[in-house]
């Protein structure tokens, strides 16, 4: 493992993995509690539509993808206010992908598979990516630090929060948009699978063992770190793709925990 650290990509991957484990572990509680797992997948697929739009218009596909995904996130947010997020995300998943297909078909020239540009892997993290990540983490933590109690109130009891004058819709939309931004920026860095896994698995595990949201959030960050380091190490030892190994370790840990917790009760 030590020898690996002579390579910058490995150092960067470890630093990025640490930041992402913490940031995503933190957000994980809200994803699981608000049943937003589908958001991770929906937004990452919406990126396809955004890339295709960029190709069609001859703009930078990465930039168009970010805006396209933010717009999708915003639509999900304002529709989800009334109905359930689940079906709105599903519809936008299909719609954005369909738009992507249509945009590409309108571009008459040869179209490249730009997707690999848009979807990253943790081994491909660069220095400047690290700065982006750190900035993202600081931004998210500041917002959650400032509004933590309001966000908890809203997540717990939307109706009463609304009656006591909290701008419930504003906060809910803010959360979705922040999550969207985090997702779309990080698929470029670590890829779809790892994004979903890091955002869902930790809270899904900790919620089985702890019955207080503060503990759940704290241990989610911790467990993400454990999953990441052990997966990364294992992927190196077994020469397997890193992201996929990390995800597999996480998923296996979840199923083991669920079995264990199921037995206990």
């Amino acid at each position: 493992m030590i020898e690996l650290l002579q390579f910058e990509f490995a150092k960067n991957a470890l630093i990025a993995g640490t930041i992402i484990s913490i940031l995503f572990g933190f957000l994980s509680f809200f994803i699981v509690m608000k049943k937003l797992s589908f958001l991770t997948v929906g937004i990452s697929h919406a990126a396809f539509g955004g890339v295709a739009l960029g190709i069609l218009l001859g703009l930078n596909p990465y930039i168009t993808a970010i805006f396209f995904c933010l717009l999708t996130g915003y639509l999900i947010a304002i529709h989800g206010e009334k109905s359930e997020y689940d079906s709105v995300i599903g519809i936008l998943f299909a719609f954005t992908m369909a738009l992507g297909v249509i945009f590409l078909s309108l571009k008459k020239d040869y179209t490249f598979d730009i997707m690999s540009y848009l979807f990253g892997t943790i081994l491909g993290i660069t220095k400047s990516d690290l700065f982006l990540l750190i900035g993202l983490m600081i931004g998210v933590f500041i917002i959650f630090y400032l509004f933590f109690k309001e966000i908890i109130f809203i997540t717990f009891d939307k109706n009463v929060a609304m009656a006591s004058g909290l701008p419930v819709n504003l906060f809910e939309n803010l959360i979705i948009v922040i999550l969207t931004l985090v997702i779309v920026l990080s698929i470029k860095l670590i890829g779809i699978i790892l994004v979903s896994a890091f955002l869902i698995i930790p809270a899904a595990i900790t919620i089985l063992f702890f019955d207080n949201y503060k503990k759940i959030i704290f241990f989610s960050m911790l467990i993400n770190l454990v999953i990441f380091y052990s997966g990364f190490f294992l992927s190196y030892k077994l020469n397997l793709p890193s992201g996929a190994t990390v995800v597999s370790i996480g998923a296996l840990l979840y199923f083991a925990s669920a079995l264990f917790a199921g037995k206990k009760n």
Partner: protein
Amino acid sequence: MSLPYIFIEDLEVKYGNKVVLEDIFLKVEKGEIVSIVGPNGGGKTTLLKVILGLKDYSKGTIKVLGKNPKEVDKKEIGYLPQREETAKNFPISVFETVLMGRYPKIGLFRKPGEKDKEIALESLKLVKMDHLKDENINKLSGGQRQRVFIARALAMEPKILILDEPSTGLDIVAQEDFYKILVEIRNKKEMSIIMVSHDIGVVSTFVDKIACLNKTIHYHGKSGTPIPKDVLEKVFGSNIQILVHDPHCKGCHRGEHD
């Protein structure tokens, strides 16, 4: 004299095309406890929701603390819904739930202080749930849960407390305690309380005013005097003869005497 805390004039409320409230006139003064009674589907919850600004009205005037319901400073309003709809299995302790009642008062960007924690604990003591303060709320019984939500509403220390069937699920001792607490709090904090209840008998012994609501308000009287029989008939329908009004045991007796 100051403005009434709640002032409603000629109010009409509809769901779609169906009128569920009409000709509503109601005034709640500072420091008053008003109870709304009436049959199921009479529009009690709807009226509260209009006061809270959660439901629009189609006609009339309504002023809460001198303002339109949507413009009121909401942190002065405490609310206990008829049917609590919190996120399923949200992992939170009893104490933290009650502390949440303080959040609107604390305001944005700030954390609950010692004072807020004291108030929350006090409210828990009032409903006799302080021994379970660290318990997860999903492990409570129905009545224990209701007490916690009452405590949260009390912890809000609002100017107006709006309670929709608060005694649901409380055991007899807790009910008794609860009504006492309400009177006590009103006296101490000068808040107005508007409360829906089916417990006509008990309620009428301690509230200041009773409003009988069935689409419109049929009687809006001072407590202590029995509700006229014809009003009860209008409000609850013809079955009302079963409600025996005995000056000694007011409104409590629901069965034929044995």
